[in-house]
């Protein structure tokens, strides 16, 4: 099977249906041994006694592969209430990773966002076998679009809208680049929506499954969108980066697109890297390979329907070429 094949979706979906899934272990997270699940390319164990966390987790992760407790896990996390008198009037929850507490405790109601941020932190601080960017990644077939952008740019809203419009989600937050092949490795996780975008996505896409909103986090009000089953089914199918799009939500703005020169876009992409300095020359050559392979654009938008339509038109010719090449083979 091709490692990139969109055509393999049916097969992958069939495989997925035969696997044990998180939804089959509703109390697993709350047990003393926790719950072990696969979010390729990593395996996690999460242990917690927090019921709000367990409820949000089962809303966002039901379709993920459930693993045996004896399975090897890459990241072992525990989230538990902070002890002491304070727990009676302002309960807090803390995250432990391999016995360390990398973050200050947060209000107990923020347990699920804390878990999500913790999972991101685990990967970005450890997984240096990849070149990592702060970027959403979506694809059709094996053709990937990277959307690197700082917080507040509308990246996650756009990412959610594209996924709910039939695009394959590879990641909302982290683009993982394979250093050898230059391919994007999917790391499919719930999409983190903030503030106004929660209602926007909920109203525009009634089938979207969102966790309960959590207010007053450092990012404002936060809710997480469950990834599509198709995206999870293809979570081991790498994709080729072909487009770099730097999105910027701008109220009142018409859709504006500016073509960027590859080198300047690549420098902008590098600004969104988590570990380029760690990887040195190896990372630089992988970075340049991504930049060379991609057409780059700055996108300013207000209306989601216009933006989605632009993305569909952007990728259409490449998909056409790709299909023609495949049939020629």
């Amino acid at each position, binding site marked *: 099977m091709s490692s990139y094949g969109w055509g393999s979706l049916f097969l992958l979906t069939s495989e997925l249906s035969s696997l044990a899934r998180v939804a089959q272990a509703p109390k697993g997270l709350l047990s003393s041994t926790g719950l072990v699940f696969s979010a390729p390319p990593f395996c996690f164990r999460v242990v917690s006694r927090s019921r709000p966390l367990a409820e949000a987790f089962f809303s966002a992760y039901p379709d993920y592969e459930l693993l045996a407790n004896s399975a090897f896990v890459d990241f072992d996390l525990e989230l538990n209430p902070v002890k002491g008198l304070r727990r009676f009037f302002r309960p807090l929850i803390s995250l432990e990773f391999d016995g360390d507490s990398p973050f200050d405790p947060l209000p107990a109601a923020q347990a699920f966002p804390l878990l999500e941020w913790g999972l991101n932190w685990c990967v970005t601080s450890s997984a240096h076998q990849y070149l990592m960017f702060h970027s959403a990644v979506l694809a059709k077939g094996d053709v990937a679009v990277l959307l690197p952008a700082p917080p507040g740019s509308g990246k996650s809203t756009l990412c959610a809208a594209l996924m709910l419009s039939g695009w394959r989600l590879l990641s909302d937050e982290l683009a993982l680049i394979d250093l050898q092949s230059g391919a994007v490795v999917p790391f499919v996780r719930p999409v983190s929506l903030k503030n106004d975008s929660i209602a926007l996505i909920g109203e525009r896409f009634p089938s979207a499954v969102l966790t309960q909103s959590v207010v007053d986090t450092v990012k404002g009000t936060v809710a997480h969108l469950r990834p599509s089953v198709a995206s999870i089914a293809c979570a081991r199918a790498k994709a080729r980066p072909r487009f770099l799009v730097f999105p910027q939500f701008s109220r009142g703005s018409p859709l504006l697109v500016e073509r960027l*020169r*590859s*080198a*300047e876009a*690549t*420098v902008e992409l*590098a600004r969104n890297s988590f570990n*380029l*300095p760690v990887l*040195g*020359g190896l990372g*630089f*050559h992988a*970075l*340049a390979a991504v*930049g*060379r392979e991609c057409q780059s654009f700055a996108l300013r938008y207000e209306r989601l329907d216009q933006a989605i339509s632009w993305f569909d038109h952007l990728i259409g010719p490449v998909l056409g070429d790709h299909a023609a090449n495949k049939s020629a083979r």
Partner: protein
Amino acid sequence: MYFRIADSWCFEPFPDGDGLVYHPFLGDLYALSAAPCGVLHTMANGTYTRKGVLDALMGIPSSSPGGERVEMGGHFDELVRLGVIVSVDL
């Protein structure tokens, strides 16, 4: 005209004539642009081949292909000053 990048720096050319140089442990990254209004001109395999490079090296304004005068310098001057670009051979 050709020039050489200092040995400790990595170089990556782009098909459109732009390029990148990167220091693998200092982490400095520069885009070398071949754009008409940009800093440097055509490059291939680590060599630059336009008059604009020499003009830039000498700190004088150069001309874009369209004839509009643009200020050169920027990245290139900085790279020379930093010693990233170590020699120029006309």
